[in-house]
């Protein structure tokens, strides 16, 4: 299987919102190639007609009662916020 390229590492890092250092880019290019090669083994099996498993239990439609109930007070919601502006989380401009 082809090794993944530096550009692919940068593309995935961008999708994952990770700013990687030069050292990390080189290291991850190597390690991710090895890991992807190992996990590509899943493609060896004939899986035609096999349904996917997203979840190990056969639960269907776990409904909750459609009623209001108390939620966290705002002071708790903001207790760990890095920055706050009144009742909003404050972030740098998009």
């Amino acid at each position, binding site marked *: 299987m082809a090794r*993944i390229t530096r550009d*692919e*590492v940068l593309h*995935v*890092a961008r*999708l*994952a*919102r*990770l*700013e*990687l*250092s030069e050292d*990390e880019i080189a290291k*991850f290019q190597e*390690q*991710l190639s*090895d*890991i*992807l090669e*190992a*996990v*590509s*083994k*899943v*493609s060896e*099996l004939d*899986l035609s007609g*096999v*349904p*996917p*498993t*997203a*979840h*190990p*239990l056969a*639960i269907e439609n*776990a409904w*909750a009662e459609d009623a209001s109930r108390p939620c*966290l007070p705002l002071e*708790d*919601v903001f*207790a*760990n*916020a*890095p*920055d706050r502006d009144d009742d909003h*989380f404050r*972030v*740098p*401009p*998009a």
Partner: protein
Amino acid sequence: MTLDTLRLTAEEAKRLLDAKEISGAELFAAYSGREDDLNAYLLRCDDPGGDGIPIAVKDVIGTKGIRTTAGSKILESYVPVYDATVIANAKRHGLRILGKTNTDEFAMGSSTENSAFGPSRNPWDPSRVPGGSGGGSAAAVSGGLAPWALGSDTGGSIKQPAALCGHVGLRPTYGTVSRYGVVAFASSLDQVGPVAKNVRDCAFLYSIISGRDENDSTTVDVPPVELPAADDLKGIRIGVPKQMNHVEGVQPGVTEQVDKAIALAESLGAEIGECSLPLSVDYGMPCYYLVAPAEASSNLARYDGVRYGLRVDGADFREMAMRTRDAGFGDEPKRRIMIGTYALSSGYYDAYYATAQKVRTVIRREHDAVFEKFDLIVSPTSPTVAFEFGEKAADPLAMYLCDVFTIPSCLAGLPGLNVPVGLSEGLPVGIQLIGPQFAENTLFRVGHALEQAIGFDFVPERLR
């Protein structure tokens, strides 16, 4: 009275408390006063008062007012404003939190070497790892720093440390224990479970934490937990998967102890037979390392410097988020986020993630077929005894193979119990008992009978 915290079980502690032979304060102090030279705890708590049994809690489980880091710098100063359901359940039974135990970052690892706060040490040999990710809880329980603990298990994080430290750990059936308030790693795999010195304590703690929770829609009603008492195994059919026993990569000393335990089970009345999981072992690891990172990449997207956790400033939102995540995550979460993002990305989704989900069905069906003939299956929990620091840390794939036997049943949502069975090179060896979904009582029964017959001394030799 002097308490031997290395030997004291939770059941015995409860008896001493009920008989008023010790006070709640004395009991708590016996643990909190013991020096933590194993780096088992990231944080130790004051006695909240009362006379309940003390407990250590893995630091991925949210505790109101008590810092919860998940072993990550990105949550270094995070203090939950509510309790996880398992903590609320524990408190309802009077349990008192001794502290928060070390873990590989976001529970990703098999040695605690991925913790942002340094690794924990194995109580049997401090130059070796305690296993992971729940190495802190494991070191605490085996090192006399807690009578029992809560762990979490995604691909082996309760069972493998229990094997390497010589005690009992249960990964419960998926859906029997609430994940509400637990730091999410891979949501279709994560389960909280008990870590204990013996099987009865393990069963008792499971009875406290399990049950349906309206705050976690993946939880279900749980059959009543039976504390095991029987010494025989009459009528129990035990399957020995040939792909997990007597195979390359398993240390001879491990195989020897596992074989002895299987022979002992037979002498206690169990019916032993060979069985086969031809695809589960070979394809479990690759399947897991697609499913779990894919879910992790989604779950860890929440750490963006907005609502809680670390923030590193940047000129705009995107730069802030990227810098925050680069500074806050260690190597292993980054690797898994990258793998998961790649496996879910346009053009690769079908080849990787969708294929892995189908393999997961294959693994489930293979186990279902085995459980038509057997009540449970048995294998080594870990292919090796505790390894030395640094031995696998530089090679992610070598570390991933630590969980080769624990992973398949996790993918199938099955319960697994580690029971210590002996020593190899002076270090503990554990077997895993895997049953069909909701077979915890069978696992407890078999584990307890074996434990009684083997008489394994769970106190590390160098500390006796």
